[in-house]
């Protein structure tokens, strides 16, 4: 069953076949997690919302149109849940200025890196996160986000530049 296409697994899942949906989870959870991490900027929140997204996908799989691909549908579901989560929480980011020691040296602590990633604008952060999760496949990201390949490259470039600025000059409150 692991060699079956998504269409066949979706059809089985519609009939309540949990083992078929488990294979869909194995195939797509990673990308769902990447999108959630890209939107939310926080690993713990991304874990919770990506689990919610896969669960909702199983419960609402009959709403998947026959002309729509499962991966696009579940990613859209995850993104909507992330947006709802942010709206509910009314998150405000606390930005701390940290004067980087030395000149142009990258920060070596994951905590600083995670905070820098979290403070990237969502439109830049999402393709950057997906890029590292999807083995640096810009074409695949373009297809999933429904934007052009050059658009993906532009956003990743902007994310890298801004990340460099955060890591060398400190994180600034942008919102």
């Amino acid at each position, binding site marked *: 069953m692991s060699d079956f296409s998504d269409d066949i697994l979706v059809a089985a899942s*519609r*009939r*309540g*076949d*949990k083992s078929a*949906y*488990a294979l869909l*989870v*194995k195939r797509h*959870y*990673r990308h769902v*997690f990447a999108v959630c*991490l890209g939107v939310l900027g926080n*690993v713990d929140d991304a*874990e919770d919302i*990506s*689990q919610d997204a*896969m*669960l909702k996908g*199983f*419960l609402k799989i*009959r709403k998947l*149109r*026959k002309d729509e691909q499962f991966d696009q549908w579940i990613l859209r579901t995850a993104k909507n849940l992330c947006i709802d989560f942010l709206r509910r929480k009314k998150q405000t980011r606390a930005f701390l200025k940290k004067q980087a020691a030395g000149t*142009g*040296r*990258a*920060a*070596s602590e*994951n905590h600083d*890196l*995670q905070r820098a*990633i979290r403070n990237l604008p969502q439109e830049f952060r999402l393709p*950057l*996160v997906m*890029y*590292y*999760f999807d083995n*640096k496949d*810009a074409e695949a990201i373009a297809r999933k986000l429904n934007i052009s390949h050059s658009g993906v*490259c532009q956003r*990743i*470039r902007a994310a*890298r*530049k801004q*990340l*460099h600025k955060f*890591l*060398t000059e400190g994180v600034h409150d942008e919102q």
Partner: protein
Amino acid sequence: MSSNCDKMRDRVADLVTGILPEMEAHALQQHLRECPACRDYSRTLREEDQLLAGFFAQSSADMTSREDSVISTINGLEPSGETNIISVGGMILRSILEKHSAAAAVIVVVTLYFLITWSWISKINRCIELSGENLRSVSVSATMTTPESLGSVAEQIIYGKTYSKT
């Protein structure tokens, strides 16, 4: 650092990230060999790239356990695979072709209903007409009988006399 370096820095970021086209990468490599500032900048970005890769690799290290957690949660759900009339109806109406087929089926059923109903009503009306005709024929027969003939018959019955009609 020359003004040309500002233009090169975007390409350095692309080179480090791995999205720079090959032809531009050759030109950039040449510039990096000649420009220490851009070379340092490139080295810094590579360190950050390794940090990013390590950070995301760490985030994805627990992916299997997260997947298993999702699957176990789903397995704990109550069976939701039963079909019901509403879900079957929804599935039937999902595609355009199926919608057209459903519409055609509805039209056929409605037409048959009206045809059957009309034929029954026609039969009932026909029965009523026939009943009416019978009643009229009986009444006509009754009116054609004259009072005298009725009276002679009555007298015959009462008095036993016979009359002939003049």
